[in-house]
């Protein structure tokens, strides 16, 4: 056989190995708005940048007549490519081949590309679309999952890991996405749960639809397992591209620098956003947009624990992670979910050299039996832990209220913020004036002829004395009291001057955060 015929033999073999699960299975996949594994990779990555490996890998199943079956690519496509100019390692499970089920060689292909990603120090993207373990391969498929989880953990904090759930992801399979940094979901396509509706019905007698149990909305709104919600796979891919533009390739690199751009001050003006009464709500995302480059803010987990807002922006061309209380929702309190959400984000930013900008306006922690019993002490501690251990530049701006434990938790000087700025409207106090006056002046109020009048008087007195940034500034807990319009200017300078920040932490194997 000459080179020509060998080449045509290769092409024939490639065609065969890339045939997926056949026309019928592919048709079925498309009928429900899903792309095939290869189509997904091609439409996500930069044109002509994808290089596939392990095309000829075959499955290793021996029992139940599996040895007589040929599964093209063993149900998963793996390779490398470029995403918005950044190198990435990627795998996509192919549901059309044996339901994308995970057998030993399928897992081997995935772990091989994961090892590559970790060695080459580039982000890993996993597209999940699988019916679960390949039952015929028994304990070997469990071994496959275990090997994946182990590598997810090794890679955590070294390279960004992104999971895209474009189909079922059930049983043990869910733990790979759970160990990664960002989970993307699509309405009607994402289905993620430990036990499906069938099992729940037969064992427990509870009836629930797949969508209500583990659909995109549920995971983005209720469980907090997912970070991004999209209506279609195309929208999901554009979200991934945007995210990748904000984050570095690995934990020793910096995120890509973009040209500096001013905020769109015509649309977003601090003056228009902020009500002066600390009890009035406003949308903190408008404030963020008023200070960041081009008013661009990529919000993460925008549907979950909305009382805190997290996401990426750029200031003077460089990526920053933003954490901000949201007075619009639950008055911006910290609670179990919001602490959990913020803490994980802070740790991501710290691991990947992304400076943190914190905007503070909160009345404290959410009161209630349900919160106490849900472990708000343990969960609330996460945010203290995450801020305290973060060594990236930390800049805090207190805009209005910073009361009690909330003040400490939101990256105060005591947790080693590098700069804490406060607006003249800031109120740094142990609690709101009404609450404080009621306690401090209890006697005067209860013994007064007109207790209500006395209470009002005492509240005013307290407000006058303590509801301002100057008491904290007098102790040096605030570095500068600034005009709201100066916020961006101060942030630009603080970030610029903190570039060479170096601090040493006590030597340890690892800390023990309260999770």
């Amino acid at each position, binding site marked *: 056989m000459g080179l020509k015929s060998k080449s045509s033999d290769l092409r024939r073999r490639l065609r065969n190995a890339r045939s997926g699960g056949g026309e019928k299975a592919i048709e079925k996949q498309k009928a429900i708005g899903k792309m095939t594994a290869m189509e997904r990779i091609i439409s996500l990555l930069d044109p002509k940048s994808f290089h596939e490996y392990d095309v000829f890998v075959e499955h290793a199943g021996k029992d139940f007549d599996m040895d007589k079956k040929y599964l093209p690519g063993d149900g998963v496509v793996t390779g490398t490519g470029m995403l918005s100019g950044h190198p990435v390692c990627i795998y996509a499970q192919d549901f059309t081949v044996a339901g994308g089920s995970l057998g030993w060689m399928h897992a081997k292909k995935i772990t091989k590309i994961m090892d590559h990603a970790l060695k080459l120090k580039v982000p890993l993207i996993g597209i999940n679309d699988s019916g679960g373990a390949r039952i015929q391969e028994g304990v070997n498929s469990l071994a496959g999952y275990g090997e994946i989880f182990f590598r997810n953990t090794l890679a955590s904090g070294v390279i960004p890991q992104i999971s895209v759930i474009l189909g079922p992801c059930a049983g043990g399979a869910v733990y790979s996405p759970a160990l990664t940094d960002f989970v993307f979901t699509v309405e009607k396509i994402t289905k993620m749960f430990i036990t499906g509706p069938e099992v729940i019905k037969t*064992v427990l007698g509870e009836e629930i639809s797949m969508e209500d149990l583990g659909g995109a909305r549920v995971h983005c709104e209720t469980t907090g397992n997912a970070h991004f919600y999209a209506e279609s796979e195309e929208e999901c891919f554009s979200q991934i591209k945007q995210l990748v533009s904000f984050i570095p390739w690995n934990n020793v690199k910096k995120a890509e620098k973009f040209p500096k751009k001013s905020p769109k001050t015509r649309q977003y003006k601090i003056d228009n956003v902020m009500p002066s009464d600390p*009890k009035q*709500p406003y949308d903190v995302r408008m404030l963020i947009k008023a200070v960041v480059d081009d008013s661009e803010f990529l919000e993460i987990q925008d549907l979950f624990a909305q009382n805190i807002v997290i996401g990426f922006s750029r200031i003077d061309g460089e990526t920053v992670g933003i954490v901000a209380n949201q007075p619009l*929702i639950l008055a911006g*309190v910290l609670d179990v979910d919001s602490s959990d959400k913020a803490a994980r984000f802070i740790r991501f930013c710290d691991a990947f050299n992304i400076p943190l900008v914190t905007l503070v306006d909160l*009345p404290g922690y959410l*009161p209630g039996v349900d919160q106490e019993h849900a472990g708000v002490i343990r969960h609330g501690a996460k945010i203290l832990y995450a801020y305290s251990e973060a060594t990236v530049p930390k800049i805090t701006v207190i805009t209005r209220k910073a009361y009690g434990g909330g003040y400490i938790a939101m990256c105060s000087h005591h947790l080693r913020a590098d700069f804490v700025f406060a607006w003249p409207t800031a109120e740094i106090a142990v609690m709101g*004036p009404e*609450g404080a006056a009621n306690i401090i002046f209890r006697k005067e109020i209860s013994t007064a002829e007109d207790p209500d009048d006395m209470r009002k008087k005492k509240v005013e007195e307290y407000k006058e004395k303590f509801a301002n940034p100057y008491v904290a500034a007098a102790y040096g807990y605030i570095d500068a009291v600034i005009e709201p319009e100066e916020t961006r200017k101060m942030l630009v300078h603080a970030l610029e001057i903190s570039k060479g920040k170096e601090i040493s932490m006590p030597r340890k194997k690892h800390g023990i955060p309260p999770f």
Partner: protein
Amino acid sequence: MPKKEKEEKIRYNSLVVDGVKYKTLLTQKFINRPIFKEKDPGMVKAFIPGTILKVRVKKGKRVKEGDLLLILEAMKMRNVVASPVDGVIRKVLAKAGDRVSKNQLMIEIDHEFKS
């Protein structure tokens, strides 16, 4: 001003933290949060959904704490449900063969309970 108009469309709720009332929106999760009520241990509820295998008590029977009330099969396990209190059976709502959901009331026991 267009901004004001937009504000008025939103119907705000309020939330009280440390004696201060804040105008804000509430989340569905917050609205649906469980409201705490003191539990009467004499109200014996299914701690897991399953099937009643056997009921060993009848109305009027005096029971001691730890006495067998019924057997609840769930997740392939036969769970012994014992009386949490000393008292007298007021009502038996479960019978053998019944499928019960989680927190379904199975037996009521009269006992000294201060609510």
